[in-house]
């Protein structure tokens, strides 16, 4: 047990520099923009007095380190600046994000569920029938699904379900199952393809191991050998990539939300970019980045729970 605790603490400590890097990148973004950085965060119709105030607050005439320090301090207080978009003028970016975050979480949760509940069984199924036509068709299918960029898959599903079949509506967050299902499916199926392949190759590798033959030689029923022993071992590499998966999902969410006009953080980024609402863009990227880091952290911890060998290293 002690080794588990120390592992968790270690991982949490390691996550901190990554979050710091995220803040640094977001901070630097402002300076990468061509022209005077203050223009980007300046609300329209700002007066000279306003500009002076902003300059002082952000410390634009002071050395970088000081500015970064001020930035971090503001973050710790939850201040991510104010939106400069017309429709949300002077609204706190953090407020905007709070409104949108639950919707994105909702979408990702369902997407993740779909991804794993399809991917894992399909991967096992495919591995157990290696090289049969069933296996091959699964492989071809996943290859194509994997190659499709999320927005394209979303459009395809839209075409299929909204336009041709008329079952579901394409846009909006009118609420309920029918509006979340398409974007969630898009996210979920795209990642399911990847999960399936990983699960399959992992199963194939595990079933070749000595201990599987050993277990059979002990007289264990095949069902137990596969579902109890092989599966548990095979699922480990798949769990390691849950962290990477979350990164994929976050990136996918940005695109998918835009396709389906799902008012989550992803959609916010897109609209903010087209509105030149820089503070909002910064806030979104930061939140998403932190999300990714947290996701990785949780995945690492989960992994240690399941695989006892990892806790030592």
């Amino acid at each position, binding site marked *: 047990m002690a080794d588990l605790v120390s592992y968790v603490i270690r991982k949490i400590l390691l996550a901190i520099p990554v979050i710091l890097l995220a803040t640094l990148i977001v901070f630097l973004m402002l300076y990468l923009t061509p022209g005077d950085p203050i223009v980007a965060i300046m609300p329209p119709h700002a007066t000279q007095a306003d500009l002076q105030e902003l300059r002082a607050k952000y410390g634009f005439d002071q050395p970088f380190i000081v500015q970064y320090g001020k930035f971090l301090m503001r973050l710790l207080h939850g201040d991510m600046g104010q939106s400069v978009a017309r429709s949300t003028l002077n609204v706190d970016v953090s407020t905007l994000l709070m409104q949108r975050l639950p919707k994105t979480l909702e979408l990702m949760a369902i997407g993740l569920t779909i991804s794993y509940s399809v991917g894992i069984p399909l991967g096992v199924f495919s591995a157990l029938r290696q090289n049969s036509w069933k296996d091959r068709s699964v492989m071809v299918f996943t290859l194509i699904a994997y190659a499709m960029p999320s927005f394209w898959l979303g459009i395809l599903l839209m075409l299929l379900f909204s336009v041709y079949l008329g079952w579901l509506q394409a846009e909006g967050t009118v609420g309920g199952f029918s509006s979340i299902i398409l974007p969630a499916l898009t996210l979920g199926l795209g990642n399911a393809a990847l999960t399936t392949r990983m699960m399959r190759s992992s199963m194939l590798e595990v079933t070749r191991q000595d*201990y599987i033959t*050993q277990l059979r030689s002990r*007289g264990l029923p095949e069902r137990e050998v596969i579902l109890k022993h092989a599966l548990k071992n095979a699922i*480990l590499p798949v769990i390691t990539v849950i962290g990477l998966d979350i990164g994929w999902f976050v990136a996918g969410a940005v695109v998918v939300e835009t396709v389906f006009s799902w008012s989550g953080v992803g959609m916010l980024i897109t609209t903010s970019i087209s509105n030149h609402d820089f503070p909002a863009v910064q806030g979104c990227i930061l939140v998403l980045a932190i999300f990714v880091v947290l996701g990785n952290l949780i995945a690492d911890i989960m992994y240690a729970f399941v695989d006892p060998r990892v806790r030592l290293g």
Partner: protein
Amino acid sequence: MTPSKKPVLEIKGLRTQFFLHEGVVTALDGIDLTIYENESVGIVGETGCGKSMTAFSVLRLVPHPGKITAGSIWFKGTDLTKLTNDQMRGIRGKQISMIFQDPSTSLDPVFTIGSQLGEVISLHQNIYNQEELNKRIMRVLNLVRIAAPANVMKQYPHELSGGMKQRVMIALALSCSPSLLIADEPTTALDVTIQAQVLNLLKDLVRGVGSSMMLITHNLGVVAETCDRVCIMYAGRIVEAARTDELFGKPQHPYTKGLLAAFPKLGEQKDELSVIKGTVPNLMKPFPGCSFVERCDYAMEACRRVRPMMLEVSPEHFVSCHLYLGGGEKTDVS
């Protein structure tokens, strides 16, 4: 110890082949082997000669794309080759069990020792009461001389040393008192210092439980220590079989002689290690004659054309070689 004359295992004409893209590999080409009650038989040969495949064939665990294509395996009156997989399951782990060579890859890494032992015991002995089960597990661990069994039960395989893992394997194999224990190179992967310990343990336990043992190894020293009888295998065939002391004292087959000569003996003065020239034949190409013909110093014309039969050259001493036609006398056949 005199083994009784009742056979536990009788393999007759066993042929196991692998059907690959490139061709058919004949891993076992007509094996005849008998193991009696309460005896330990060693199967010796170099890598790739089919020793492990014999073990897998007995347990019907030949990996794909291999199959048993001919012969019968009689175990206590039943032909194992004719059983369904379900029926075989009843035999595996309970009546015939197997220890693999490398203990570090033979245990499921994500389950504790206790749970793996418990799994086998509860499966074969129908014990589901956790307390009773734990008692049995402790008893078995004690049997294999593991100190602090209560701790070991909660540990994972990677936390144990090689020697301890192999003891656990032995525990797993003997936990249900099988009639036949197959040990495939049980000490090869262990430190030299541990090898003797584990071997002795194996010997004692097998005797104590009253099992027979098929000990597979390439190490003649191990055989000398533990086995009552020895079979020498070459390229999927058994070339010589005899009681241990008889084989070491009066080896008949040229291959056996070569093997024994290759082992330097204490006190012997030698400038060079003797070797058997040549390499193992390609098992994909069927050959009508004796498989050792390319490397044999005594090869004759007949050796290329006709496969030698297994003959009893002296009581319980069998050889498959054209040098010995007609009961022990060297005959010149042309």
